[in-house]
């Protein structure tokens, strides 16, 4: 069922939200070519996957694809990211750090009102952040922001963040467009308990309705603080879990814009002159998790042999029709320069390792019961057969897979690692031996040490080097197998102008940039 | 036409009907001809499978699709020369209006999900151009004249709420609603109790004499036929084997089959444990008609000629008494 796959994605998206940290690397930027004079009015219909889980950062169990996209149009963050790492003021005007890097003072914009009429000020920001940091509220992502100690009001339009130690990703958190940690909601709506289903913020669009599983409708905010924006009267986010439906919706004119990763559709739509194409480069990858603690996968030879047996290029060709990148490092395609220690497809080596191991290997491969899951299962089975590993694909629903992962009973399963603009925190999460997110239960003292080093490092160059060393080490230990890179595509009708280009590592449209207009 | 002759309501000439089943063809009615005069009753007597029902249904075009009427068949009715030449639409104007029919089982010949009043009114609405109100009034009168008590209530009842006798009265009311010239009664009393049978037959006879209607009475009961008809035709294996006025037939049976039929009826004046005179053997197979006389295999009087040659209907001593037998009773064999 298509839905589980999306749920898989959605839940991974929570993970992603938690992992987003921002060192702002090169972005694809906003296209410099002018698209003519903006036109006002019209309804944009955007189709995406998945469901929304609510808009209240505490109550919702994670904003998924569409929900995040819609929510960020309603609620605004303090800052946006620019093309060159710089913070672009939104609700915040400036962010300055103290010399030790432990205190950040943020000046806020004056004269902004929430949709419900209450004013935006330091109280709103402090209320939001204190709520997040309150351990009673059990915010799911709290470990990701654990270096933040407290937020205090230092003026009507000024707040101060106190950190445990100097922490490079802090500004990225402020400007993050994933999850609802950074956008500021109306305290009134939150207190009334309405925020989760009917969000109130300061954004260019006002929430109108949300029909679960069908659509989220937003209308233009006439009192938006950025005069002259937005251009659109209404935005309709349609939820279509089935990729075929999404494709059909675009082609038959039901929607103006879709986001998809389905290779046949990508192939077809890219060739069509009627549509404009944009690529979301997430710098993330799909991998095959191996349970490092369970025999025979606790033997590094078996894991290595399996990694060597995997033919990524062929897989990308068959399963993705080359619409997704080939990767050699979990840092993503951006980091592939230099020696990554990636175990390239080599059957002879793999067979040799298996011979060395000497025992028959039989494994179960858990996959979601979807078309793509089935294809994956078949290919894994086929390739592993070549080195004498007998794999039984087991289709399961996502909940069951999650449970197997949680309890550590699985042999192997496919998984998506979400990238981000900064891979530091995700590295810690994925490979630190005591991390709850270390799903493959990989354990290496050397890597643990390196991970702590990079976290405390304040020099970007040195940090990059440490990360690369970690990549090489992890690649040679093969705690999991890279199946392929991951990439999504946005297709829009030509009359949709000024499409905000996605930033690398960011999911959906970043920040408050949503300045599209329709030229019909 | 010779004016001195009584008017003929119906004239059937050389009627043949074949029924196609998936692996053979049954000659259900074989070259039957007869006349029916105005106001008279013709009884057609025969055992099941003798083709009497098919014969009558073919007059009203009520045959199943598998039945085919031979081309040379002619059915001449009153003003219409040949019924078989009429289109379906034209024929529908005669059906129910000029020729009506009642069926064996009154319970099943009424639509179970339709009020009986409406069922009677239907033909009035259709043929007489009445409106609903007129029709209802007429129907209630009609029901009353059929001897149905409380017609106003009965009008709105469904067939299953009525007894068999009343149902048959309703069926007769339907048939007689438009004052037809000819009524075909297909075993109208077989499904009814003995006591009711007589009443229904009496009712039919009475209405007939009132309206000078002609009637074809189909029955398997020779006794009923002789009591109720002016003329009797005996059918066997799809053919009329003997035809005569009722009194003449009763007193002077010529055909061995008719006599055997008569003899095999248990009689009240027989003593207990009487062995009945019965016709041996099985009825003929109509799919494979025999060459000679169809009754020959079961006939005690049969001779070689009977098996080889088919006897044709011919008059005997009396002109209006015809029979199909080489060696009829009462003639030296």
């Amino acid at each position: 069922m298509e839905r589980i796959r999306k749920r898989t994605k959605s839940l991974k998206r929570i993970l992603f939200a938690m992992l987003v940290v921002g060192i702002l690397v090169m972005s694809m930027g906003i296209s410099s070519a002018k698209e003519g004079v903006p036109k006002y009015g019209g309804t944009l219909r955007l189709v995406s996957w998945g469901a929304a889980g609510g808009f209240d950062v505490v109550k919702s169990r994670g904003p998924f694809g569409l929900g995040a996209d819609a929510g960020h149009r309603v609620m605004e963050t303090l800052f946006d990211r620019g093309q060159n790492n710089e913070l672009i003021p939104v609700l915040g005007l400036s962010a300055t750090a103290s010399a030790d890097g432990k205190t950040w003072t943020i000046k806020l914009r004056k004269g902004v009102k929430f949709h419900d009429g209450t004013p935006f000020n330091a109280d709103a920001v402090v209320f939001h952040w204190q709520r997040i940091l309150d351990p009673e509220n059990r915010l799911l992502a709290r470990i990701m922001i654990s270096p933040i100690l407290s937020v205090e009001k230092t003026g009507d339009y000024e707040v101060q963040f106190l950190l445990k130690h100097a922490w490079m990703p802090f500004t990225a958190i402020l400007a993050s467009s994933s999850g609802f940690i950074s956008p500021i909601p109306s305290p009134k709506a939150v207190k009334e308990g309405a925020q989760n289903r009917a969000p109130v913020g300061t954004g260019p669009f006002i929430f109108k309705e949300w029909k679960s599983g069908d659509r989220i409708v937003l209308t233009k905010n006439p009192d938006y603080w950025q005069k002259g924006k937005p251009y659109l009267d209404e935005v309709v986010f349609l939820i279509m879990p089935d990729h075929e439906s999404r494709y059909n919706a675009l082609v038959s004119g039901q929607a103006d814009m879709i986001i998809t990763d389905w290779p046949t559709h990508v192939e077809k739509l890219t060739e069509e002159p009627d549509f404009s194409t944009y690529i979301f480069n997430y710098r993330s990858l799909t991998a095959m998790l191996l349970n490092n603690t369970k025999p025979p996968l606790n033997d590094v030879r078996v894991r290595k042999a399996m990694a060597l047996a995997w033919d990524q290029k062929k897989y990308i060709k068959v399963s993705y029709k080359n619409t997704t990148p080939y990767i050699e490092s979990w840092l993503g395609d951006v980091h592939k320069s230099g020696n990554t220690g990636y175990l390239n497809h080599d059957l002879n080596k793999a067979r040799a390792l298996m011979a060395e191991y000497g025992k028959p290997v039989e494994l179960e491969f858990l996959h979601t019961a979807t078309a793509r899951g089935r294809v994956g299962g078949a290919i894994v089975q086929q390739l592993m057969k070549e080195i004498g590993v007998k794999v039984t694909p087991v289709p399961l629903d996502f909940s069951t897979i999650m449970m197997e992962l949680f309890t550590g009973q699985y042999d192997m399963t496919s998984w998506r690692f979400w990238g981000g603009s900064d891979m530091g925190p995700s590295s810690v999460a994925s490979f630190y031996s005591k991390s709850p997110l270390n799903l493959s239960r990989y354990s290496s003292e050397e890597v643990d040490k390196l991970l702590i080093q990079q976290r405390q490092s304040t020099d970007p160059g040195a940090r990059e080097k440490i990360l690369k060393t970690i990549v090489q080490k992890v690649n040679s230990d093969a705690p999991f197998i890279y199946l392929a890179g991951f990439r999504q595509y946005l297709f829009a009708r030509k009359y949709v102008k000024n499409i905000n280009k996605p930033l690398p590592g960011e999911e959906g449209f970043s920040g408050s940039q949503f300045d599209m207009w329709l030229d019909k | 036409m010779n004016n001195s002759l009584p008017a003929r309501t119906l004239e059937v000439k050389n009627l043949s009907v074949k029924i196609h089943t998936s692996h053979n063809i049954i000659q259900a009615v074989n070259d039957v001809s007869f006349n029916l005069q105005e106001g008279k009753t013709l009884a057609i007597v025969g055992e099941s499978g003798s083709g009497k029902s098919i014969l009558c249904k073919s007059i009203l075009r009520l045959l199943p699709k598998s039945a085919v009427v031979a081309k040379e068949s002619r059915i001449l009715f009153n003003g219409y020369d040949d019924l078989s030449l009429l289109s379906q639409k034209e024929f529908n104007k005669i059906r129910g209006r000029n020729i009506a029919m009642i069926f064996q089982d009154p319970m099943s010949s009424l639509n179970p999900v339709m009020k009986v009043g409406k069922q009677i009114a239907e033909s009035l609405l259709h043929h007489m151009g009445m409106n609903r109100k007129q029709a209802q009034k007429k129907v209630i009168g009609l029901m009353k004249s059929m001897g149905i008590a409380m017609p106003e209530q009965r009008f709105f009842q469904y067939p299953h709420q009525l007894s068999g006798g009343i149902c048959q009265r309703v069926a007769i009311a339907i048939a007689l609603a438009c004052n037809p010239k000819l009524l075909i009664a297909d075993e109208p009393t077989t499904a009814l109790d003995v006591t009711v049978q007589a009443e229904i037959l009496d009712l039919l006879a009475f209405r007939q004499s009132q309206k000078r209607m002609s009637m074809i009475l189909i029955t398997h009961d020779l006794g009923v036929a002789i009591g109720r008809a002016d003329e009797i035709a005996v059918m066997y294996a799809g053919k009329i084997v003997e035809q005569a006025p009722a009194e003449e037939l009763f007193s002077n049976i010529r055909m061995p089959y008719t006599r055997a039929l008569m003899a095999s009826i248990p009689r009240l004046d027989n003593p207990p444990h009487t062995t009945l005179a019965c016709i041996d053997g099985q009825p003929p197979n109509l799919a494979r008609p025999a060459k000679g006389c169809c009754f020959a295999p079961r006939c005690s009087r049969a001779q070689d000629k009977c098996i080889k040659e088919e006897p044709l209907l011919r008059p005997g001593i009396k002109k209006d008494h015809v029979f199909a037998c080489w060696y009829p009773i009462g003639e030296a064999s």
Partner: protein
Amino acid sequence: MMVFLGKKLFRLIVVILAVTAITFLMVNFLPGDIAITTAGFGASLEDVEAIREDLGLNKNIVLRYTLWLFDAAQGRLGQSFLTDEPVLEAISQRLPVTIELMIISQMFALMLAIPFGIISAYKSGTNIDKTINTLAFSVMSIPTFVMALLLIFAFSLKVNWLPATGYVPFSEGFWLNIKSFLLPGFSIALVEWGYLMRILRSDMISTLQEDYILMAKSKGLPTVYILFKHALRPSCFTLITILGIQVGHLIGGAVIVENIFALPGIGSLLIAAIYGRDYTVVQGCILFITIAYVMINFFVDILYSILDPRIRFQNRT
């Protein structure tokens, strides 16, 4: 009649209780639970346990079912664990979609089945009958999803007459709303009509053999009149029964069509809820689907007695 109603009501309650209880049991015994689904990563096992406690999943299952039943009886179906949406609201948004799909598809199916059924019964054994039957058997042999794909391919992607997917709410225009249901309705109807037609045909043929049809014919009534006024009504009892069951199943089972055409119906809500182990939503959906099923069959029973006076009068005694 009161006894009849009372009996039906009793049966309705028994079925609803049984179905919801079975569902409750079933969903609870599935591997994985809502706590794990919602906890996400970063959550510790204690977090999961805390969520379980929050949601009351630690209590005895019988107690939980009783509590749910008690609440449900008062119209409180709770909120979705996953989206916080009140279950009643979620269902009230989805149910109209499903019902509209059901009505439109069954209307199409009947519009095809009744005339074809009558013609083919009337012409039984002829080439017309054979053609209609071959057609019916052919469409009966095409799975709904293949039919849906074919229809989208033909009417939407090739000629673009009808929208391929998506649901347009009633508020956005009557015609647009109807249009968005045409293709899904047809893909259900096209597969189903053959089945319904075969049923009608078979009953109609036996009705046409009844003496009262001969009687009607002997009255000189036109054929079309006889077919519709005399023959149709007594021939449609099986058709109605099957239709009742079919409609009942469509309410919960039009998942495929809802999925392909992106219709936010109750079927897809239910499936998503099961995958997410969203117990309250599952229970709420099942409750509504069961009630709908039982009610529809109840109406079918009533329809019987309207159509057939024999049943009507039998009930009265």
